[in-house]
């Protein structure tokens, strides 16, 4: 039996890798997405266009403005000189933020009274706005500390902030390991979901069914290539993530690969389920897409599961990717050992087993 399965597996590999179209599907999207995600997908802000409406002639205001223009996150695009000029700048999105310093600023400060600074932020993208406001208050706090120490006054009690695992809070460290999950899912689905449909379309499936292959052997022969390709591609992404994108890999590889194996198992089981139902490649593709989109969105890949409505959070419990993301991020950034992540492993195994059983059942029914 194993020799037959091996022969089928070799055939699957050859058929997959010799076909230009499927070779492209398996290799190109992962690479492109890794690059795009690695570079384009970031919540960190960089050269945000801002304007300064400074009515104060004093030195203090110039010092404050210099702190903004000197920061890499900001990029000065305009210096309006009247109230009327402010609104068009923000409306037209030429400036995402306007810093408005009143005429009395330096004088108030010198007099030991708080100097008022108004910050107008474009809230159309509220996430950018919130991050922007965070940057602004950090700069203001620095300014305050320096000003107070120069004037000899006692600074107020400070909140000391430390970030574990990702001290500079780089969102790339968060997103790149997530891509490992995304791309593994994509490849596993594409390899399996279309494979039976492709054979049906080419008429080779009947030919396969009249051979002595048993359904379980066909199932195995279709799953193993997906498993091997998934493992290979995941390894490539792990290497790229650590060597190219410099994301720290602090945990042990055994935990990572154990998680990867279980995740692939559950993803392949879904792919086979789609495969056993889809008659054409078109349907297989649509099925893969309709499974892929929600499972990425509801996995905590880009936005945390905790932010979703409670009923939606319950829905995510059947999504294998949510568990895998916890595992890879835990292994990569936290160096979490197997024990800490144990609760993430068994749900994937259960999902995979249930789906495999259903896929096997559907497969048998479609076969006969």
């Amino acid at each position, binding site marked *: 039996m194993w020799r037959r399965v091996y022969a089928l597996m070799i055939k699957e590999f050859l058929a997959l890798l010799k076909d230009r179209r499927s070779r492209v599907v398996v290799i190109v999207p992962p690479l492109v997405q890794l690059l795009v995600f690695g570079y384009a997908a970031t919540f960190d802000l960089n050269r945000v266009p801002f304007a300064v409406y400074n009515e104060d002639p004093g030195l203090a205001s110039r010092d404050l403005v210099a702190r903004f223009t000197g920061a890499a996150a900001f990029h000065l695009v305009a210096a309006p000189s009247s109230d009327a000029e402010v609104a068009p700048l923000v409306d037209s999105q030429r400036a995402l933020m306007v810093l408005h310093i009143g005429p009395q600023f330096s004088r108030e400060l010198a007099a030991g009274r708080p100097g008022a600074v108004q910050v107008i932020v474009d809230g159309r993208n509220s996430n950018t706005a919130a991050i922007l406001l965070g940057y602004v208050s950090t700069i203001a706090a620095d300014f305050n500390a320096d000003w107070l120490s120069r004037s000899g006054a006692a600074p107020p009690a400070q909140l000391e902030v430390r970030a574990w695992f990702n001290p500079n809070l780089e969102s790339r460290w968060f997103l790149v390991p997530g891509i490992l999950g995304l791309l593994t899912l994509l490849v596993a689905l594409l390899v399996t979901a279309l494979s039976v449909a492709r054979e049906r379309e080419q*008429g080779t499936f*009947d030919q396969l069914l*009249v051979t002595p292959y048993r359904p379980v052997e066909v199932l195995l022969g279709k799953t193993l290539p997906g498993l091997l390709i998934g493992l290979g591609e995941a390894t490539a992404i792990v290497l790229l993530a650590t060597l190219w994108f410099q994301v720290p890999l602090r945990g042990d590889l055994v935990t990572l690969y154990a998680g990867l194996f279980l995740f692939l198992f559950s993803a392949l089981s879904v792919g086979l389920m789609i495969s056993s139902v889809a008659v054409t490649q078109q349907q297989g593709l649509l099925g893969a897409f309709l499974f892929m989109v929600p499972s990425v969105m509801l996995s905590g890949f880009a936005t945390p599961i905790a932010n979703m409505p409670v009923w939606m959070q319950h829905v995510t419990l059947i999504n294998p990717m949510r568990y895998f993301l916890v595992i890879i991020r835990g292994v990569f950034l936290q160096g979490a050992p197997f024990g800490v992540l144990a609760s993430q492993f068994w749900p994937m195994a259960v999902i995979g087993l249930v789906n495999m059983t259903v896929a096997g059942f559907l497969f048998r029914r479609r076969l006969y």
Partner: protein
Amino acid sequence: MSPDAAAQVVLELRGVRKQFTSGGRTLTALRGVSLGVGRGRVTGLIGPDGAGKTTLMRLSVGLLVPDEGQITALGHDTARDPLAVQSSVGYMPQRFGLYEDLTVQENLDLYSDLQGVAAADRAGRYGELMHMTGLARFTGRLAGRLSGGMKQKLGLACTLVRPPQLLLLDEPTVGVDPVSRRELWQIVYRLVREHAMTVLLSTAYLDEAERCDDIVLLHEGEILGKGRPGEFREPLRGRTFSARAPAIGKRAFQKALSAVPGVLDAVIQADRVRVVAREGATDIPGQIARAFAGSTAEAVEPRLEDAFVALLLGRGEARAGAGPLPARAAPAAGTPHRPAAFPGPVIEVRDVSRKFGDFYAVRRATFDVAQGEVFGLLGPNGAGKSTTFRMLCGLLPPSAGTLRVAGLDLRHAASAARARIGYMSQKFSLYGNLSVLENLRFFSSAYDLFGRRQDGRIAWALGEFGLAEYVSMTSQDLSLGHKQRLAMACALMHEPDILFLDEPTSGVDPIARREFWSRINALAEGGVTILVTTHFMEEAEYCDRLAIMADGEVLTIGDPASIKRGQRSEAMPEPSMEDAFIGLIERRARGAEAA
């Protein structure tokens, strides 16, 4: 060309070449074709799949532009002025573009709009077309729900909403039952007679070509010959015979006859063997009578197929010197594999029905196949052949009835039982992007052949089927004939006892078909049971017994000679297989009316 002659030629091709490139490969579809289609005549474009028929049709209506040469249709250059051609020519593509989710009437309306038929003219035109095609009762039906023959007639009606001067039909009779086929031909002749229309149609059926005024024989992009059907047959007059040797089995007789020096071609025809003599060979009947005791041979009228085969074989000989001909070179299928004797029928079908929704694809079919028999399922597309076939292979469960293959139901049988059957399906269904060797290796492994035995069988297949020089070629790049050989090799890797063949020869040229059948005959002689489906009437003659199917029902079962004999009448003393088929269908229709 004189103006007078120019008026006579409606479509003219001069030195037309056309190449296609796909994926780095260049395929020459037409190599310097010149021909003229005369006004008011029915010209048949004859050739196997891949001969270039469709390319020629598409070039003629300006859908393709020739690489070289010039095409003039109704006085317009098709490359330079395609719109002018398209507004005066009627063209029905192979898969006619009916919108299956539109009704018959809606399809007609659409094509009338597109062809600019004035609203006032429509009612009269529709009435005429519907009467001619017999579709008047079905105007409200969705086109997708029509039978193959009715679809084809609707397609023709849509092409004719604005009567064209020149009508091009690309394989109009593929997948159409013999009755509808006859009706289609009647329509074509009526158009020529009443509207002085010029018709160019292509077909792979040689028996149809006999009905044309002129014939153009196309083979691998070249014209092998053109003329009236009689002109093709004439050189063969006196060289065609029908031989009979009741003492010897018909297959052994055919094999022996092929080896007689003066014989060019020998094919089984029911219980007889049809013989075509080589040019210059004398006294063939005498030779046969002397060589085979008790045999008789009489002269018969030559057929177009005889002429076609003679032309092709002549070319092959000219090319390959005096080397062996493919038809003859086909050896017996290797070391004869003798299946263990099986008591009782190898294939048993009892009251089997298959429903899809409320539609019966097969209704109460019953037949048996004995060991070593070549059993044919004959019928047009949609007759239920493929459904029956798939049920036998265990690919589809029956809705009612029982099926047994070697005493087992393949649906529930252990995988070892499936190892005893070989299967070759309708369209080429091997892994197209795998090489010849990879395909052979995979299918032999699938049947548990490993190691030395596997290598031995692969070597056998490569030698036996002449595939050795194509070992590393991607199988989708093979020619149709080689693909068919590879498919058969894959089906025979494990030396099956029972062989299922689903329309194995559709689209293959007559030479490859002969080669194929000589292998089948050899296998059957060795005791292998063979079930074959076909829609070629003449292939039915090669079978020991056959079941004729139409609309999901088995009309009759018997050996070819007795089926034909059963339809003998005063009007038809020597019915052909097609005549017999039509007779059976008409009788059933009368029976239905009476009931």
